[in-house]
């Protein structure tokens, strides 16, 4: 936020009259260098503030998506439900998936990647801080844009997979699909920009000695995810553009009467959509690969295996998209190839589970809430992974696909895999980010209610699906529910009750945040942690590290605290310093000159211009022109602005001792 230097005598603004200060001469065109107030958040380029905002907004969308899910389950609790109309129900499940995938899990993972990656590799910020701000605001405005469709004529109603031709205007005449298409294009730009930024950060900005194979595992998984985003987002971008041109400009990419092949959309969508699954779960795999070693007091078992299996999952993930299309009418050869490829991807996934359990084996397990969520992930994800193997078998899949069995499967994968991991991360890093502990007691309740709730909700869906209940149906009928006490009606009701339990469990997280807001400051190293992000204060200073750490081993922080005093093959780890002492040592040798990037208006302005163009495409061409003009202005304003503000942007310290806008020194 500021240039932090030891005091100098240099006057801030050379050649200007005494009365002229930057704040008066630049007026509103001065860079927003404020260190406090809303502007310090809105125009910040600090990866930590951006990470926090990502997380908060994603959490809001988590509860929006959760309410949509509760409405869906309420509708399906009884046969011939009447809570939602068919139209509203279709909008509800479309938006539930869209919100959870694009507006909760992805940005929540981005929040962790943004906040933790620079800290874990010993950097002061990401490679392109302003691009980082752009990603955040594009995501925020894109999310608001999509959800604004609720009050502008109805949300998208074609399912998150938006199969053509059901997404064409005659079959979905409201503007919902347009909002969805344009909104995803906007959030797609956010992901794309973020991916480039984080890849460059991870590859280029590592601290001295931080080899690739010494990078903390979360950073590794986040890096793999960014590569997946980099190569999959353009594919969905093409699909979304085709759909937009189809709906808004009369193109006929999906008009069957013109000879179009509806399977084109499916190929493009799933070529993005399958890597997307790994985009959702890999960050959580990374998180629990940090949490499990910390609370087992042991390094991650088989670190290189976990790294390479993550990379392998990412790579093979691009070659299995057609397993979503086993029933779509591909030839038997394609089906066989994709079936086998899908089984192949189970191997690296299995490797991860094996490594996690072996990490715990022989450890000294400390069951904090974060650890509970991590173990919960292993168990729940194993169930989801194994049910995944049952429909890698293509003939079985033709019975299972588009039934509740699939709904059960991917909720075990995405809720059990991704969401539980994210919660593990939240509980693990909360003291790091906010300097306060969350209540462990409420945390336990939070965990157990969520686990019970999710198994009650999604567990019965296995039975529902295998006994023939298709998904995406706004009602089900007693005629096809079977007989006996445990008929499908019973399991539907259990699932609906389970969703309430799950909802209460998730709500307890908010309670926990509220209750814990006045907790005393957290200790410097509350979990006896292992990786580099703990090598600084809680919360970290604006410049992250007082001096850039030099890295000698994997789990650098742990090895600065503990030394092996054993002889020969006998190992005996003795604590030589507490975390707080290690951090103090760093402060002692603080770097003298720390240049941090400066805040900027332009990311926000550029991010606002895209939804304006979006509204223009839907409602009025003039808005497109206006939005494009703003975008061009912002781009050039950005290009002409140096990343770090000039001295002349800062007011000199006022003689009467008022706070200057530029922080002058770090106390040593």
């Amino acid at each position: 936020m500021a240039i932090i230097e030891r005091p100098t005598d240099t006057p801030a603004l050379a050649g200007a009259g005494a009365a002229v200060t930057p704040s008066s001469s630049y007026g509103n065109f001065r860079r927003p260098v404020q260190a406090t107030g809303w502007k310090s958040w809105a125009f910040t380029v600090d990866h930590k503030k951006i990470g926090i905002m990502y997380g908060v907004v994603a959490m809001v969308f988590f509860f929006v998506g959760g309410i949509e899910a509760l409405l869906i389950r309420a509708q399906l609790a009884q046969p011939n439900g009447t809570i939602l109309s068919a139209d509203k129900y279709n909008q509800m499940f479309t938006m539930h998936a869209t919100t959870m995938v694009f507006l909760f899990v992805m940005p929540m993972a981005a929040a962790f990647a943004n906040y933790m990656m620079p800290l874990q590799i010993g950097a002061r910020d990401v490679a392109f801080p302003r691009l980082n701000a752009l990603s955040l605001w594009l995501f925020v405005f894109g999310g608001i844009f999509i959800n604004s469709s609720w009050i502008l004529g109805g949300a998208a109603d074609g399912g998150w997979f938006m199969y053509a031709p059901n997404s064409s205007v005659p079959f979905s005449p409201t503007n919902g699909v347009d909002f969805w298409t344009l909104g995803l294009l906007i959030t797609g730009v956010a992901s794309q920009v973020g991916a480039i930024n984080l890849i460059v950060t991870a590859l280029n900005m590592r601290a001295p000695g931080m080899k690739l194979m010494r990078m903390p595992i979360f950073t590794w998984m986040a890096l793999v995810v960014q590569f997946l985003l980099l190569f999959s987002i353009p594919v969905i971008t093409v699909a979304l553009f085709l759909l937009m041109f189809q709906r808004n400009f009369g193109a006929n990419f999906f008009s069957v009467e013109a000879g179009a092949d509806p399977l084109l959309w499916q190929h493009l969508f799933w070529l993005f959509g399958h890597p997307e699954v790994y985009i959702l779960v890999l960050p959580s795999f990374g998180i629990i690969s940090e949490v499990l070693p910390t609370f087992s007091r042991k390094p991650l078992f088989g670190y290189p295996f976990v790294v390479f299996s993550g990379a392998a999952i990412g790579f093979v993930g691009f070659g299995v998209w057609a397993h979503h299309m086993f029933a779509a009418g591909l030839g038997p050869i394609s089906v066989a190839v994709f079936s086998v490829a899908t089984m192949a991807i189970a191997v690296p996934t299995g490797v991860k589970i094996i490594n996690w359990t072996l990490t715990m084996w022989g450890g000294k397990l400390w069951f904090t809430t974060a650890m509970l969520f991590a173990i919960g992930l292993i168990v729940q994800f194993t169930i989801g992974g194994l049910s995944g193997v049952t429909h890698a078998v293509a003939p079985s899949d033709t019975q299972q696909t588009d039934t509740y069995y699939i709904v059960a499967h991917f909720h075990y994968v995405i809720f059990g895999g991704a969401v539980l991991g994210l919660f593990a991360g939240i509980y693990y890093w909360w003291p790091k980010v906010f300097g306060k502990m969350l209540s462990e007691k409420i945390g336990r309740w939070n965990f157990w209610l969520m686990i019970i709730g999710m198994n009650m909700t999604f567990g019965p869906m296995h039975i529902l699906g295998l006994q023939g209940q298709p998904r995406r149906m706004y009602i089900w009928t007693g005629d096809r529910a079977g007989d006996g006490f445990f008929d499908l009606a019973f399991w539907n009701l259990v699932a609906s009750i389970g969703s309430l339990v799950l909802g209460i469990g998730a709500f307890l997280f908010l309670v926990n945040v509220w209750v814990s807001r006045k907790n005393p400051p957290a200790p410097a190293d509350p979990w006896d942690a292992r990786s580099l992000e703990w090598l600084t204060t809680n919360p970290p200073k604006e410049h992250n590290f007082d001096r850039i750490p030099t890295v000698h081993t994997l789990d650098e922080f742990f090895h600065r605290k503990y030394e092996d005093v054993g002889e020969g093959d006998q190992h005996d780890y003795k604590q030589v310093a507490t975390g707080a002492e290690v951090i103090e040592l760093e402060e002692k040798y603080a770097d003298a000159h720390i240049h941090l990037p400066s805040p900027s208006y332009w990311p926000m302005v550029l991010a606002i211009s895209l939804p304006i163009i979006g509204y223009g495409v839907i409602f009025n061409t003039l808005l497109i022109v206006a939005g494009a003009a703003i975008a061009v202005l912002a781009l050039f304003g950005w290009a002409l602005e140096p990343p770090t503000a000039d001295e002349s942007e800062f007011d000199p310290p006022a003689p009467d001792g008022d706070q200057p806008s530029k922080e002058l020194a770090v106390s040593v």
Partner: protein
Amino acid sequence: MFTTGSKFLVGAAVLATLSAIAYGVTQDGIMGTVGLGSAAVALWFLAGLNLYTRDNNYWADEIASIEQAPAAVPAPANSVWPFAFAFGAAVLAVGLVTYQAVFIIGVVLLLVSGAEWTAEAWAQSASADTGHNANVRDRIANPLEFPLAAAIGIGVVVYAFSRVMLFLSKTNTVIAFAVLGSIVIALAFFFAYRPRVPSKAAAVVIGVGALGLIAGGAAAGLSGEREIHPHETTSGLNEEGVDICTSPDEFEADLKASQSVSATAAVAATITLGSDGELSYDLNGPSAPGAVGITLPRSNPNNIIFQNRSGEPRRLSASLGTMVAEGSTNEVPVLMCTTLVDDGGAQNMTMRIDLPSITTPGGYSFFVPGVESAELNLVVP
């Protein structure tokens, strides 16, 4: 900080927002929501502005800021923008009574000069230091000037040159393009390796070139394009009543027509004209022995692939009964056909048939013009 005006505006904005949401949730149709939403946006904007400027009532907040006003500033320099602004207004007025293009030029001129004027005026009062003020001006104006200048520059080249080419004959376009490209490159190398040439000369050359291009573009634009005729297509000829579908001859629509298809799998039927002059067909999956024709669902986009293995260029036609032509009482035959397909080629035909075949005595059929023996029943239930 909340003065009377801002309180009123914030209140009104909250009200408009709530009513927009309420309207959107409860009512069908979006115009009401859009209207109320726009009102809300406008009110929030005004409220924000008011809050920010404190109703333009500094005294309400603090006195001190007045005392820190910048020192006196030097007299402003000469400026071209007031003139440009007035000129823009004049052009706009002329445009209103003459051409829309002139009007748009006037609007752009007005906007640009207005923006430049504002930026200049703002910057000149920023401080007592003219160098600093120039920086302030650049900070405000450059992000607009650079892209606009670049866009105008490239727009002129693209517009003028494309007009010139549309004016030239088809062969001459290639020559013009090659010549102009070569000239540009030759001149570039000339200037690059003749550093003695004063930069003014380069500027003159570029200026003359640009003027020439604009003049050429304007002249070409005024004298109009060369005549470009629409190509004839199968559908066009059918609409004109040309019996393309019953003729084995070649029409313009058949010239160099596409001879292969990428849709080979999962079509409704593949119909092959063999060297024996018979039509055979292949459906997805087996068909019973002794079947005499193809059944296609009614009102359905059916993809039929025609393969020609007869040794001569042939087309596949479908006879689909008769219909009453528009504006008359005459029954005319309904025909659909592919273009002429070379031997060994194939072509896809997407056909939707809305009336069942029982409505036509004798039913529907596929046939190949010029090959008597090639006929195939088509049943549409």
